[in-house]
Each structure stands twice: as C-alpha cells, then as structure tokens.
C-alpha cells in the first residue's frame, strides 16, 4: 500500500503545484489585473459581514461585563490622544517650515485633498504580507498607487483595486519604503516595514543628531507620498559613529490590527 500510494500522491502533488504556478503566472500578467481584481472583490462582502459579526459579538459580550465599554472608551481616548499628538507634531514641524510648507502639513484642510472613506474588511492572510483589505474600489474612484491615511497619520498605499474592494500595502510591509524628515532635528531618513516596529535609517548630518521622542513625517522626497503626513514617533535611536547613518525604531501612529476606518486620498498622484 505504501509503495503505491506514495508515488500517486507525489504525482498529484506535482500536478497541483504545476497547475497553481501556471495560474499564478497567468493572473500576474497585466492584462489579467482587471479580472483578478474583480474576482478578489467577490470575497470583500463576506469579509465585511465577518467583521460586522465580530463587532456584534463584541457588543454581546459587553452584556457580561463592562470590558467592551472600557475598551471602546479606551479606543476613543487613544484616538483623541493620537489626534492631539498629531496636532502637536504638526505645530512643531510647522514652526520650522515656511508658510507654504505649513500648508502642506495641514493637507486635509488647506490643500483640500479629495478623500474616500473606506472600512477595513480584512487583513493579510499571514505575517509575511502586511496588507489591509478595504471595501472601496475602482467604482468609488480608488486606484492602485493612491495614499491611505487615518486621522492619526499615514497607513500605506493601495496595491491593487477591484470594482468594490482594494488591497492596501501598509507601512509594516517588509517592502514598504517611506522617505521622512524629523520634526525637531529636521534630519531626513527612510522608514522601512517590519513585523514588530517600523525601522528608520537616518542620514548623518552636521546639523545635529536625532533623539527619542521626535516625530517622523513624510518628506515628499521621491514624490511617492505627499509631504507632512505623520508616520510615527521615534521610540529609540542607535547612533553609529562608524556608519553614515543612524538606526531608529519608530512607534507607528496606526496599529493595523485595530484600524477600522481609513481615508484614501484620491487626488494625489505619486510620481
């Protein structure tokens, strides 16, 4: 039995692997992107329903105690705290910038960017893909490349979009790169993703050194992101005299596991 079943299952394994790899190569083609996005959109309503169910279960569980109410209150306070911290950061940064740049920091009001509010309906299926799925797609004006934020700060970028859903690559994704400047020292650097915290590589400058507690905001360098979006606060900085850069850990203003609503900037075109 052993001798017969093993080659059979090995053959089936190889055949299924080959089929899936061919499928991957076909659906990776640019001409298949539309169909792929449409197929992926089909699961979005189910994910939204499941997310809704999770919310309802949270409410039901609150009948057995006030844990849920306290959690909601804590989330509200955290959101308010984040909003206040963002305002402080923006004000501090604005003090170092000229009037035009100050307007850039307050992009939502001064620049009047058009935004689409979207609900998070799902997250990446494993630790390797730090993505979010939202319930807005091309039918709502959402296109790949658009920037995604919350009231607290930058979330990421739309990776692919279907008619009624889109997948967002968050800053925590290992391949994510964002050019930033620091609110106090004005130093520039690049934030990269990671599973636990965002990593920042700060370029050395004669102007000064970075210190913990500084805020990192998008610099707009490279044209990938608009200038002035809050990314996070420097939790720790490691100075390296022998290197041309310092390393820092950034506490991201957004916790992707608990974001429920995001804003997609629909009129900023990354260069």
């Amino acid at each position, binding site marked *: 039995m052993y001798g017969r079943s093993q080659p059979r299952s090995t053959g089936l394994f190889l055949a299924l*692997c080959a089929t899936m*790899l061919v499928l991957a190569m076909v659906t990776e083609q640019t001409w298949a992107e539309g169909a792929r996005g449409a*197929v992926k959109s089909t699961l979005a309503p189910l994910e939204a329903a*499941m997310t809704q169910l999770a919310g309802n279960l949270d409410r039901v569980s609150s009948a057995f105690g006030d844990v849920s109410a306290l959690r909601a209150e804590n989330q509200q306070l955290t959101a308010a705290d984040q909003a206040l911290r963002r305002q402080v950061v923006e004000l501090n940064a604005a003090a170092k910038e000229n009037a035009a740049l100050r307007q850039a920091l307050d992009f939502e009001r001064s620049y009047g960017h058009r935004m689409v509010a979207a609900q998070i309906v799902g997250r*990446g*299926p*494993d630790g390797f893909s730090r993505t979010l799925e939202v319930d807005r797609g091309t039918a709502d004006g959402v296109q790949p490349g658009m920037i995604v934020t919350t009231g607290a700060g930058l979330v990421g970028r739309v990776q*692919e979009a279907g008619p009624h859903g889109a*997948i967002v690559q968050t800053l925590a994704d290992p391949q994510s790169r964002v050019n930033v400047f620091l609110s106090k020292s004005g130093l520039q650097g690049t934030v990269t993703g990671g599973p636990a915290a965002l990593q920042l590589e700060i370029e050395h400058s004669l102007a000064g050194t970075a210190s913990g507690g500084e805020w990192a905001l998008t610099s707009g360098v490279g044209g990938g992101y608009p200038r002035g979006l809050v990314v996070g606060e420097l939790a720790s900085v490691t100075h390296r005299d022998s290197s041309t850069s310092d390393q820092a850990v950034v506490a991201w203003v957004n916790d992707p596991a608990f974001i429920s609503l995001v804003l997609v900037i629909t009129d900023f075109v990354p260069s």
Partner: protein
Amino acid sequence: MKRLAIAGLLVAIVLVQVTWAPRITVAGAFPNLALVAVIAITWSAGVRQGMAWACVAGLLLDLTADGPLGPHAVALLAGAYLSGFWVRNLDRESLLHPVIAAAASTAIYSAVLVLADDLLGLPVPSLGIALQLVVAASVYNAALMPVALAAGRKLHSPVTRRAEPV
C-alpha cells in the same frame, strides 16, 4: 454533502483568519487557521484529500492577499504533502506527531510562500524577519493543532474507519 460542509467550513476559517486572527498577534505572527485545518484534514482523511482542500483554502487565501492567485495554494500544498509523509509513516493516534507536523509544515509553508513570492517578484521579508515570523507561527500553529485535529477527526470519522482495517 460532506464536501460542501468542508468547503463552507474552509471559507469560514479563511474569513476568520483575515478578520479576527490578526488581533491576536504574538511576536509578529498570528495563527494560520487555514494551514492548521488542512493539516487536520490530511491527518484524518489522507494526503490526497488534504492536498485537494489545500488548493481550495490556498486560493481563498490568495483572494485576500495582494498579487496573483496561486502562491498560498502552492504553500499549503507543500504543508499538506509534508503532513502526508508523517501520516503514512508514524503513529496516527499519538498527539505529539500532529503537533510536530504542524510546526514543520508551517516552516515548509513559509519557505515555499517566500520562495514563490520572490519568484513572482512580490515583496518578501528579510531573512531575519522571516525566521522570527516562522518560529512564532510554528509555535502558534502547533499549539492549535490538537483542537483542529479533534474537529477534523469528528468530521471525517467514517472515512477514517474505512481506512483502518489493514
């Protein structure tokens, strides 16, 4: 009818994985419920069924991830195939073997997924980050395996009884 039930169950498991599971992240990893379910099916119903359901669950996961359809299916197939070896050659009743198989399959799943993503030009983490995630996910999935196995055996009990007489 049973196939329909398993398909429905897998859809529910994948939905839970992409909506609830990320809330219980430990060391950057969260449970891969689809992989655990596929291993449980392989353990209780055999490697061929395990691989068939791995394709279904993998394609469902691909629908929730960025990039083309297929990488998660290939990764789950590898996990099911490895578990199949375990099932054929070791004591099915022991609880230790499926737990170790879950940990090993998680490592194989992760390696194949990263490799497939790399070949397809999709984002892949650095080696250090990948190892950290693999270790955490392996422990997580192994811890969930006994519960999944009990459910899998219950769902496939008639099939298991037919396969046992030898």
